[in-house]
C-alpha cells in the first residue's frame, strides 16, 4: 500500500515530464471522450493510449494488476448497456426479457471502450507521477497555497500507515474478544468500534505530525523549494501528443459519421 504510491524502479520517459502537463492531457482526453458516445472515437483514443504504455513504464501485466477493477467495471457497463438498451437492427440474442440487437451491441461496445479510454489515462498518470513531484508542480507552477498542498502530501503518507493500523487494531480487538462474527448488527457494531479506534489513533498521529511540521517552521510566510518544478521540451511534446490523440478521436468519429453529442 505504502509502496504503491512511489515510482521506485520506474525510469520511463514520461516520469520526467512535469505532472501538470500530464494532468492537462488527461483532462483534455477525458473531456473529449465525455462529449460523445460512439465506438470510433473511443477506439482511436484507446489504441493511441495503449501505444503509449511503454513511455509510462506500464506493461499489460501491471495495468491489469492496478486497474482490474476499472477494467471489469467497464466491461460490465458495456455488457449491461448491450442488454438493456432499446433494440435496433437485427436481434442477435434473445433470452426472455434480455435481448441483444446490433444497435444495442454497438452502444454497449461504445460504452465499454469509452470507459476504458477514460480510465486508462488516469492509470497512466498514476503510474508515472510521483506524489511529491505533483505537489511541487501544484504549489510552484499552479500556484496553489503551499500550506494546503504540503499538508495534503504529508497526510497522504499517513494514509498508508492507517491501513497498517487498521489491521493492528482489528487484531488487538480480536484479542479482547470482539469478533467479526455473529449477527449483521453485531458485526456492524464491531466494525464501528474498530473505526472509532482508528479515528482516535489517526487524530493522535495527525496532531503529532502537525506539531512536527510546525516545529520545523511550516506555515510561516515565505518558503523556498529545494526541488524546483520545471517545464522542459518534453512537456511540450506531451501536450502536443495529448492534443493529437484528442483530435484524432474527434476527426475519425466525425469522418465515419458516428460522432454523437451525449446531450442530443
Amino acid at each position: 500500500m505504502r509502496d504503491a504510491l512511489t515510482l521506485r524502479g520506474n525510469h520511463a520517459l514520461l516520469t520526467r515530464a512535469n505532472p501538470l502537463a500530464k494532468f492537462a492531457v488527461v483532462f483534455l482526453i477525458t473531456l473529449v471522450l465525455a462529449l460523445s458516445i460512439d465506438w470510433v472515437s473511443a477506439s482511436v483514443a484507446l489504441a493511441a493510449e495503449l501505444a503509449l504504455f511503454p513511455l509510462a513504464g506500464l506493461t499489460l501485466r501491471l495495468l491489469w494488476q492496478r486497474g482490474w477493477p476499472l477494467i471489469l467495471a467497464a466491461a460490465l457497463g458495456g455488457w449491461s448497456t448491450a442488454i438493456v438498451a432499446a433494440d435496433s437492427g437485427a436481434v442477435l440474442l434473445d433470452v426472455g426479457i434480455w435481448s441483444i440487437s446490433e444497435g444495442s451491441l454497438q452502444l454497449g461496445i461504445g460504452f465499454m471502450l469509452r470507459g476504458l479510454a477514460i480510465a486508462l489515462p488516469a492509470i497512466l498518470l498514476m503510474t508515472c507521477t510521483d506524489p511529491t513531484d505533483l505537489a511541487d508542480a501544484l504549489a510552484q507552477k499552479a500556484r496553489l497555497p503551499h500550506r494546503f498542498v504540503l499538508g495534503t502530501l504529508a497526510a497522504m503518507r499517513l494514509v498508508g500507515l492507517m491501513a497498517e493500523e487498521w489491521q493492528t487494531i482489528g487484531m488487538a480487538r480480536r484479542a479482547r474478544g470482539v469478533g467479526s462474527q455473529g449477527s449483521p448488527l453485531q458485526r456492524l457494531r464491531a466494525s464501528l468500534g474498530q473505526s472509532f479506534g482508528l479515528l482516535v489513533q489517526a487524530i493522535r498521529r495527525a496532531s503529532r505530525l502537525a506539531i512536527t511540521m510546525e516545529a520545523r517552521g511550516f506555515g510561516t510566510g515565505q518558503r523556498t523549494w529545494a526541488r524546483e518544478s520545471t517545464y522542459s521540451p518534453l512537456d511540450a511534446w506531451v501536450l502536443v501528443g495529448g492534443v493529437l490523440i484528442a483530435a484524432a478521436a474527434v476527426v475519425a468519429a466525425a469522418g465515419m459519421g458516428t460522432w454523437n453529442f451525449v446531450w442530443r
Partner: protein
Amino acid sequence: MTASDAGASAVRPAAVSARGWGWRHAGRSAPAVHGLDLDIAPGERVLLLGPSGAGKSTLLHALAGVLGDEGDDADETGSLLIDGVVPRGQRGRSGLMQQDPETQVVLSRLGDDVAFGAENLAVPRDEIWRRVHEALDDVGLRSAGGGLNDVGGPGLDAGGGPSAGGLPLDHPTSALSGGQKQRLALAGILAMRPGLILLDEPTANLDPAGVLEVRDAVGRCLDKTGATLVVVEHRVSVWKDLVDRIVVLQPGSAAGSAGSSAATSAVLLDGPPDQVLAEARDMLIGAGVWVPGHVPATRRRVSAGSGDLLLAAEDLAVSRERPRRRGFRTIPPVPVQQGITAQVRSGQALTVTGPNGAGKSTFALTLAGLLAPVAGNVSAAVDLSEGAGIDPFKWKANQLISRIGTVFQEPEHQFVTGRVLDELMFGPRHLGHGEERVEELLERLRLTHLVDANPYTLSGGEKRRLSVATVLAAHPRVLVLDEPTFGQDANTWAELASFLSELLDAGTSVVSVTHDQEFSAVLGGAELRLGPASRGGARQEAGAA
C-alpha cells in the same frame, strides 16, 4: 571539511530563561507547569527529569513555539524566553524531536524530508542541499549521492561515489527503522541550524541498538555545533554522560495547588548530574526514574512450572500481509521469517528476541491466533484447546480470549469501552464468568482509584497496567506480550515483572517479545532468537534466557 566548519559557525547557541512561568492547558483545572524559574546558558546540555505529569513535555513544546493554539481557554503566566524573545515568534531557533518515530517524518523521500525545515525558513536552494548532505553525514545516514538533486557544494565529500551504508537522497523514508527515522528527524532539525535542540523522550520507542544510535548521533552533532540541549528521558544512564546538568521538575499541581505556598518552585533539584543523582537518588527511584546502577527490586520465581505443553509452532513462516489477489490469482505473501519451531509450556516463560525487522511481533501474533501462518502450523495441545480445535487462528474471539491473551505494544489499540471498569468487565461479561476476578485485578494492578476514568486519559504506566489487566480478566492460560516494557518507568516495570512472575508460578505461560534482558531474567525460561529477516531456521534454546 571547510564547508562543515563554516556551517558549524553559523549556529548560535541559544539561552533559555523562565521567570515564574506557568501553563494551564485548555479545559484543565490544574496547571501543567507552575512557577518555573530556570536559566539555561548557551551551549548547556540539560536532562529534564520528573514524575509523569510534571509538565516536561509542555515545557519543551513551549520552547519549540508550538504551544498556544488552544484558544483563549489556555492560560500562560510569567515569562519564558529564548535569547530574551518569546519562542513563538522565532521558528527555526529551536528544533523539537518527539517520541513516535512515524510522526517525525514529514515527506516520503529521505533528502526531501531533511530539506523540509530549511525550505520553510526560506533558505536558498543551493544552501539547502549543502545542509542536507552535511546533516545526513552528521547523523550517520550518510548520503550516498546519485540523488536527482545532488548538488554537492565545494569542500563536500558527500557527493562522491556511493559509500558503504549510504542511502540515496530519494530513499523512501517508510523503509527506515525506528532508530533511523529518529536520526532522520535530527538531520531535519540540524538543517535548520537551530541554537536549541529539544528532545522529548526521543528513544522511548526504540530497541537498545536504536537508543545508542540516536544518543551517539545527538552527541556528535552537539560537539560539532555547540547548540544548547534540553532532553526529557526516563533512562538516565543513556544521557548522563552527555549532559552537564540535571533539572528535576515537580508536578504543576503540587507546586501550585492550594495548600502549598505560592512560592513553591516547579524546579525541585538542579545541578551537575552526579550531584543531583547522589542527592536525590531515593526520591528519583521513588518517582520511577531509571537511576544508573539501580535495578528495581522484583519478586523471584519460586517454581519451575509443570512444563505441560500448551502450544507449539512447527516450521512456521510468518507475515503480516494477507495473501494478495492479483486479478484472478492468489499470491501468498513473502514471509518476514520462516522455519520457526517453538514450544510454549505451562508455568514457563518464552522470550522472543532478535534484531529489528526479524518478525518477532509477527511471530508472536501468529502464535497467539491473530494472524494466519504463511506456512507451517501453530497447534494447541488438548490441555489448552479444550475442545475448540487445534488451530488457534480458527477459534472464535470468545474461545480465544479465555485460552490465549495478547497484550499489544500500544495499549490504546485494545481499548473497547470508555470506562476503566467496563474495560475490565468486558471479557468476563462476554464469557459469562470471571467477573469476580476483576476486583482482585484492580487492586493488584493499582487501578481501583481509576475505575470511572476514561482509559484514553490515563498516564502511560496506567494504560500499560490496564491493558494487561483487561486481557487477564478473561483468565487465559497463555499470555503473549509485545514489548511490554517499552517506554515504561521503573516502577511500572518492576510491578509488571513481579506480577508476571506470580502468574508464571501459578501455572500461566508467558510469551514475551522483548529487548529487555533484565525483564527476561526476572521471568526466566527459554529464549527464542530470531535471525535477520527471512534467514529462517530459528529454534528455541532450552535453558535459562
